[in-house]
């Protein structure tokens, strides 16, 4: 029996504002408990919310970035429930009229592009935190985070695998940083995903009962959690069981999901428009103002890279997967007079591999864009081969200096002197009579073997094109 998994995400993005969404308390992370909990954060009797302009600008930016309609009028509502980290007994959120309407995000899975539809995005306030260390059997409540602005982004159930879900989450994670509305710090909880997972028989168009995996704060855990949950649901159904709607937590230690006890009873949130806040109006002028300050969006940049740099769609998508990588590429290409394709290959190849290996951000790359451009220039002008360049790059990464200095110091300059190469070729031909004979009997592969011997004899420094040319000539 074939099963299909259906996945939708609700992502909570903490907006990069100085102050909270409805008060002037700081949003800085890591302060001592409750030192950033002002009268509004602790919900003293009589206090009132006033909306932060910057939070609204962030929402508009996001709406523009996903090509969504930005509501000219949206409404804040109260979501009522009791929880100790929710000081008012309700969360101010948006319900019927969210600030951002339907939009879309293109993701890349393997070399396939897929559009994920976004249902809506709305502004709301974050809750505080429960600290579970044992205070004589009690929990401690820290309200520093209470009131931090969030944008909750809700996708359609458009994803069909853990890989697609992770690709979507990564793309979204990059986008919110790209447009400068979120610092993307998942450890600190700046970007948190709730994943709705259901399974159904392949070919069915009816959705199965979903379970919601709460608060995933790493892409690796998300992948594991979805895979576990999918397997569990399929097994349950195949064993004749039923799936019940539930909220579950992922335990990274066991690799399993389990239902949350606090969410066992059905919630009745009693949403209604918050009478302390008036409708949020966003004019065409407000949108135009934000748009003017918005950086070039990834999709636009991707198209431009294909056009201006002659990159393939895949390369352009990979390079624009992060703004920092795109910036690095552009800076390198600007200082390099050869083909941009070479720059793209290096950025996506050696640079990305090293960064990945060391878990570094591209902004912290030990090889700067200018240094990389200098190295690539030496490939372009024939000073070194691409192969030697890899060794030079490794030395540069290790902090051994600039490309030219390393090339000179290690004597890696390519040999392009015809006489010198001819001498090497002669020696190789003399020493490899068997291969020469094979070549002459029609085995083309033997030619490559001879080229390899020549390169080896030159310690990789001989200009490969010249070696080829001279070898052909000599072999007649």
């Amino acid at each position: 029996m074939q099963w299909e998994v259906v996945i939708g995400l609700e992502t909570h993005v903490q907006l990069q504002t100085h102050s909270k969404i409805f008060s002037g308390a700081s949003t800085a992370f890591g302060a001592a408990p409750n030192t950033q909990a002002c009268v509004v954060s602790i919900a003293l009797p009589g206090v009132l919310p006033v909306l932060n302009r910057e939070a609204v600008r962030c929402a508009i930016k996001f709406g523009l970035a996903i090509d969504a309609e930005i509501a000219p009028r949206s409404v804040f509502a109260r979501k009522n429930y009791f929880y100790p980290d929710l000081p008012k007994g309700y969360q101010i959120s948006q319900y019927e009229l969210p600030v951002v309407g339907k939009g879309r995000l293109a993701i890349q899975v393997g070399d396939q592009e897929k559009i994920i539809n976004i249902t809506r995005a709305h502004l709301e306030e974050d809750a505080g935190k429960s600290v579970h260390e044992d205070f004589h059997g009690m929990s401690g409540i820290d309200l520093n985070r209470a009131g931090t602005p969030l944008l909750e982004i809700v996708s359609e159930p458009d994803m069909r695998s853990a890989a697609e879900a992770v690709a979507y989450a990564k793309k979204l994670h990059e986008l919110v940083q790209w447009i400068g509305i979120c610092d993307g710090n998942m450890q600190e909880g700046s970007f948190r995903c709730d994943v709705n997972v259901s399974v159904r028989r392949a070919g069915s168009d009816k959705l199965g009962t979903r379970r919601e995996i709460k608060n995933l704060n790493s892409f690796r855990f998300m992948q594991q959690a979805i895979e576990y949950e999918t397997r569990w649901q399929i097994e349950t159904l195949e064993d004749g069981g039923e799936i019940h709607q539930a909220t579950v937590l992922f335990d990274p230690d066991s690799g399993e999901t389990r239902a949350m006890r606090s969410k066992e009873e059905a919630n009745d949130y009693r949403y209604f428009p918050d009478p302390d806040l008036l409708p949020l109006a966003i004019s065409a002028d407000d949108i135009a103002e934000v748009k003017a300050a918005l950086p070039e969006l990834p999709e636009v940049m991707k198209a431009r890279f294909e056009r201006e740099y002659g990159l393939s769609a895949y390369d352009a998508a990979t390079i624009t997967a992060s703004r920092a990588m795109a910036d690095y590429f552009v800076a390198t290409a600007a200082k390099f007079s050869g083909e941009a394709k070479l720059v793209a290959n290096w950025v996506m190849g050696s640079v990305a591999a090293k960064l990945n290996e060391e878990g570094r951000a591209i902004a912290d790359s030990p090889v700067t864009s200018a240094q990389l451009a200098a190295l690539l220039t030496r490939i372009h002008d024939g000073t070194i081969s691409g192969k030697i360049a890899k060794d030079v790059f490794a030395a540069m990464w290790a902090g051994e200096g600039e490309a030219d200095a390393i090339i000179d110091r290690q004597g890696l300059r390519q040999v392009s002197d015809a006489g010198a190469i001819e001498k090497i070729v002669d020696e190789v031909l003399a020493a490899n009579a068997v291969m020469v004979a094979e070549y002459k009997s029609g085995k083309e592969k033997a030619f490559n073997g001879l080229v390899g011997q020549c390169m080896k004899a030159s310690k990789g420094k001989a200009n490969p094109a010249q070696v080829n040319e001279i070898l052909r000539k000599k072999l007649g």
Partner: protein
Amino acid sequence: MSLNLSDVKRIAHLARVQIDDADAEIALRQLSGILGLIEEMQSVNTDGIAPMSHSQDVTQRLRDDVVTETDQRALFQSVAPAVEGGLYLVPKVIE
């Protein structure tokens, strides 16, 4: 729409107000009386009428994104029922 005893208990639970059976009976009677008063609304035709949340037709004013609040934890926690290490203490929260 008539109310029964289990409705009263469900509402009391949603509102986190402890209620015993005797009080629930009284509440049922009184709440039913109030609902009877409210029921008069149902006879009014409100087709095409926009709901009114605020008396003035104005929109939300926005605040500049500036930190204006300072740490007043000691003052605020001086009226708290139970605190330790700057945290408000509550019976154990189970997730």
